[in-house]
């Protein structure tokens, strides 16, 4: 019997906004369960600890965007937006813009030492607390990110292997040493507070599209 878990196409609620008829739409919410989400090019055997994942019955999805595998859990917030536009965006600059807005709005909640690291991560100091990726299709950009509010990093250690590619600032650190949560860094913020901060960021980003 195969030890590989079944791989499903990404179908979480945030993706429905990509199908919506609106030019601009967004979603912020917490996953209803634990999911493992592979990047578009990730190989299931290379990315996850298949035995643990299958034993625990974790649902494994593959998203259409790039990047490495992530875990989603109810102790995290996922946030996504789509923007249809004839204006062509530079993805690297878009990541920078989004992160600058997130830093601005999360800082207002008292979170310190926030940095934009790697291509699109947000960190507190050298510890990653948010990852993101995007894809474009039919002149529409779809961006999605996940912020770790209070999930235990041991969960990541248990299910995910060390990624095949890593940003310079990771410096070969294990998930345990590299990833953190807001709670672990000493910030006990409510989901409502964080949702508002992220929502403000997304709406400010939209202004940049309109401008």
């Amino acid at each position, binding site marked *: 019997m195969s030890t590989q878990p079944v791989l499903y196409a990404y179908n979480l609620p945030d993706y429905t906004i990509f199908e919506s008829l609106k030019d601009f739409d967004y979603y912020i919410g917490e996953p209803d369960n634990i999911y493992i989400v592979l990047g*578009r*090019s990730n190989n299931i055997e290379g990315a996850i600890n298949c035995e643990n994942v299958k034993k625990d019955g974790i649902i494994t999805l593959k998203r*259409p*965007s*790039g*990047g490495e595998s992530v875990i989603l859990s109810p102790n995290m917030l996922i946030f996504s937006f789509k923007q249809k536009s*004839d*204006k*062509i*965006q*530079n*993805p*690297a*600059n*878009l*990541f920078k*813009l989004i992160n600058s807005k997130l830093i601005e709005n999360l800082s207002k909640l008292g979170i310190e030492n926030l940095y934009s690291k790697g*291509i*699109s991560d947000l960190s507190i100091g050298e510890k990653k607390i948010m990852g*993101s*990726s*995007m*894809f*474009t*299709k*039919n*002149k529409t950009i779809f961006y999605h990110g996940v912020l770790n509010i209070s999930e235990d990093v041991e969960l990541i250690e248990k299910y995910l292997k060390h990624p095949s*590619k890593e940003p310079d600032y990771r*410096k*070969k650190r294990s998930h345990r040493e590299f990833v953190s949560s807001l709670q672990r860094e000493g910030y006990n913020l409510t989901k409502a507070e964080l949702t508002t901060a992220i929502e403000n960021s997304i709406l400010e980003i939209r202004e*940049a*599209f309109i401008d």
Partner: protein
Amino acid sequence: MRYIFKFPDIGEGLEEGVIVQWHVDKGQKVKMGESLVTMETDKVVTEIPSPRDGVIAARYGSEGETIKVGAALVEIELNADEVGDSPIEDKPKVESVEEDGAGVVGTLEVAGNDFVLTASKEGVSEQKENKTRHTKALATPVARAMAKDMGIDINLVRGTGPAQRVMKEDIQNHAKQDSKTPIPQLSSTKNLLEDRLEIEPLSQIRKTIAKNMIQSKHNAAHMTVFEEVEISELDRVRKKYKDYFKDENIRITYLAFIVKAVALALKKHKSLNAEMDMDKGVMIYKKYYNIGIAADTEKGLVVPVIKNADKLSVKEIALEIQTLADKARDGKLSMDDMKDGTFTITSYGSIGGLFAVPVINYPQAGILGIGRISKQPIVKDDKLDIGLILPLSLSVDHRIADGGETSRFLNRVMSYLNEPVGLLID
């Protein structure tokens, strides 16, 4: 006229992307903005729109293939509509435009790195008079870099590309004209410089080599030990098995034995297969033995890696060297081929040179230099004899490896090479 559209730098600092899906075929008409191809980089999967109206004259790369930033993606025949659907010329006039600030979502504006860059038809109006510009010049990145290096104000250069975009050739022509401007007291100096200097922008590989070399010299404490080892027995064994595997098209080289010897010696001298993380205050000893082979290619130095060399036979190592060498020669080495090395060997002897002071492939702990093999007089059993001598130069990071351990490691490597039967026993 044919327009070459190259895979633009997304701005992530990445050097390559993977072709996910082609949306056009050769001979197909495309409108500006229509999707040509879906590309994937580390964080982004995106469709790249056509920068021009025209007919696809050529497309490069197949789905799943990795394409370097700056490599041609498609060629678009721009005048196809004007001449009807006539066949594409055999030798079209080619315009090569490199993009800056464009991102993989594609655009032709290269005036700056603004956040929003709108694709437009501006670049098509090539026959318009080249008016004096008072704004920032449109230019290719190569032209900008060249102008900067040569101290030329790019805004004063007449561009001959689409929309008066300044091309590399425009900078070269401007520099020539500039140097020919009659300034009596300086003209002789200028002509002299023109004759004696050739200035070209740094290639990506040269930039990477420079960055890595400086990083190594700045961060590691280099120390080099020189030795000579007599390898007549190794030569005898090699010749025997070279003929033996000839039919399988496997070239049994000295290097294959050296790689095996180094890998086995590293297992017994762990500090030579380590790296130091000063930030965390730890030493990282690696329990895998991936040997990098510094290779001289037309484009510059590359270091493909033989993974788990300790577990491979000499024959398997020889085959792997052959495969990597072929890839290096053809410019087909992937990032996977070159990553995760734990120790490096540089073999300059085939070109020339006995000893060297190799620069450590940082953050690795050591690099072994292989010099030119030569016959030399040796003393064997108190008698003068002819020996086959291999010069070795071992550079180590003295922060990681002490002198004693370095010498013991080198002695072990020499022992394997002097008596190659040890490669089978250990």
